C-alpha cells in the first residue's frame, strides 16, 4: 500500500484542486484549482507508466536496465501543453472580466442568468 504513494498523492492533489474550484470565490483561485486538477491528472499519467527500477526510455549512452513506458510520457507532455494553453486563455478571460466588471468574485460575475 505504501508503495502506491504516488497514486495517493494524485488523489489528494485532485481533491484539493476540486475543492478550490468549488469552494473558492475568487476567479483566479478557481482557475488555479483547475491547474491543480490538471497537475494531478498529469502526475497520474506519468506514474502509471513507471516500472520498478526503470530508466528513462532514451538510448543515448543508456545504462543497462528496464525502460519505463514511453507512451505515457508523450501523453503527459501533450496534456501539459494543452493545460498551459487552457490556463492562458482562462486567465486572459479573467483579466478581461475584471476590467469590465471590476470584480473577480464569482458570485458577482452573473450578468447572465435566467
Amino acid at each position, binding site marked *: 500500500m505504501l508503495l502506491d504513494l504516488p497514486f495517493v498523492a494524485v488523489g489528494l492533489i*485532485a481533491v484539493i484542486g476540486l475543492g478550490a*474550484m468549488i469552494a473558492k470565490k475568487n*476567479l483566479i483561485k*478557481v*482557475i488555479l484549482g*483547475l491547474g491543480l*486538477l*490538471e497537475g494531478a*491528472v498529469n502526475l*497520474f*499519467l506519468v506514474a*502509471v507508466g513507471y516500472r520498478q527500477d526503470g530508466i528513462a526510455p532514451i538510448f543515448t549512452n543508456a545504462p543497462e536496465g528496464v525502460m519505463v513506458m514511453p*507512451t*505515457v510520457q508523450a*501523453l503527459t507532455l*501533450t*496534456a501539459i501543453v*494543452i493545460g498551459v*494553453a*487552457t490556463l492562458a*486563455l*482562462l486567465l486572459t*478571460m*479573467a483579466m*478581461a*472580466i475584471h*476590467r*469590465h*466588471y471590476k470584480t473577480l468574485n464569482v458570485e458577482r*460575475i*452573473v*450578468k*447572465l442568468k*435566467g
Partner: protein
Amino acid sequence: MSTFFGGLDNHLPALLVGVPLLFAFLMPLAERVHRRLTDILAVTGMGLTSLCGVLLAIRVFTTGAVGYAFGAASPDEMLPPDSGGVPVRILFTVDALGAFMVLIISVVGLATLVYSVTREDRHGEKATFYALFLLLTAGVSGMVATGDLFNLFVFLEISSLAGAALVAVRMDRGVAVEAALKYALLSATGGLLFLLGVALLYTQYGSLNIAFIARELRMTGLDTVAVALLAVPMAMKCGAVPMHFWMPDAYSRAPAGVTAFLVVSSQCAMYVLFRSLFTLFHRRLDLAMFGWFVIALGVLSMFIGVTMAIPQKDVKRLMAYHAISQSGYMLLGVGVGLAVLGKPELLDAYGRKAMAGGIFHIMNHALYKGLLFLTAGAVIYRTGQRDLNNLGGLGHQMGWTMLCFMAGALAIAGIPPFNGFASKFLLYESVFRFNPFLSIIAILVSVLTLASFMKVFHSMFMGPRLPRFAEVREAPLPMVVSMGVLAVLVILGGLFPTVVVEHIIEPAVVALLEQSEYIQTVMER
C-alpha cells in the same frame, strides 16, 4: 470508387483534419497580405474540408467503415505485422455513424462560414475569427473521426478552446467573455475528467485504441469509474440537464454563425457519449441502468429546456433553451435503444426504431436549429434588437428571412412536412411501445415548443410596419444564401424521410449496435 485527385481519396480521413488546420495556419499570413484574401482563403478551406467530408461519407456509406493509420508506411496498415495484434499508431476509424456526423459537420460548417463572411471587420479580428472557425471545424471533425481515446481528448480540447474563444468574439462589455469563461472552465474541467478516464483505461489495457479496448474490456471496478468519467463530461458538453447552465449563456452571446456551429459541436460530444457507451463498453454495461440514465437525462432536458424557454425575452437565449430541449429527444431515443440492447426481441420490435429516431433527430436538429439561429442573427444584424418585446413587423421587409424562420420553427415543433416531424414521429411511435408515459411527455414538449415559436414568430415578423425599423432591409446575400440552403435541406428531409433513413440513418444505427464491425475495421484486415 474511382480515384479522385490522383489517389488522394485514400487519405480523406487525414485531409478532413489536415486541410482546415493548414488553412487556419495560413490565416495570419494572409491577413498581412490583404484583407480580402482571408475571406477567399476561409471559404476555400472550408469548401475543401466539406468536400473531403462529403466524399468520405459517400465512401463509408457505399463501401463500409474506413480506417486510417497516421504515420504508417501505408494508410491501410492498421496493425504493424510484428506488433502481435496491438495497434501502435493513431488510427482514425470512420464507420457509418462517424460518417453521418462528418456529413452534418460538412454541411452546417460550410453554411455557417458563408453566413459569417458578412461580419464587419471593425476591430481587425476577422482573420482570427476565420482561423478559430477552421480550427473548431478541425476539432469536431477529428472528434468524430478518431479511433483513439487520447487523440479524442486532444481534438476535444481544440474544439472547446476554439469554441470558447469564438463565444468571446463580441465582448459585449464583458458579458460575452463571461459566457465564454463559463464555457471554457466547464469544458476544461470536463476535458480533464475525460483524460482521467482515458488514463484509467490505459493502465488496464495498455492501449488507447477504442476498438482494442472494446475487445479486451473486462469491466473491473476501475472501468466503472472510467465509464462515469467518460460519460458525464460528454453529457455536460451536449447540454443535458442538470449540466446545461453554460449553454444558454454561450449560445446567446456567440455570433449567430458560431452558435449554429456550436450546436454541431455539442452534438459531436453526444456522439462521443454514444460511442463510449455503445462501442467501448457495449454489452458489459448494466444496460437497463445506463439506458434509464440516458433516458432520464433526455426527459429532464426536454421538459426543463422547454419550460425555461417559454418566458425568455432574448430571442437567441430562447432558442438556446429549445436546443437543450431538443437534445433531450436524441438522448431519449438512443437511451431507449440502450435500455433494450440486451433483449433482441424488444430491440427489433421498437429499439432500433427509437434509435433511428434519435439519430435522425441529431441531423434534423443541426439543420433546423442552425437555421433558426441564423435567422435570429440576421434579424439582430439588421435591427440591432434581440429583445422580443422590441421587435415586430419585420415580415414586411425581411421576407426571405421570415420564410426561413417559418421552415425552422415548424420543423422544430414537429409539423409535417418538415424534417422534425419525420424524426419525432419515429420517436413517438417507438417510445410509446417502450413506455407510453415518456412518449406523452415528448408530445407535450412538442406542443409547448410550437406554442413558444408561434409567440416568437408573431412578435418578430407579424404586426404593422414599425417606424423605428423603417430603413431595415433584407439580410445580405451570403446570409440569405446560407439560410436558404439549410431551409431547403430541412424541407427535403421532411419530404423524403424514408430515403434519408434508409441510406444514412439505418447504417448509422447498425454501426452503433454492432460493436464487432467497428472492432474489425481495426483488428482484422
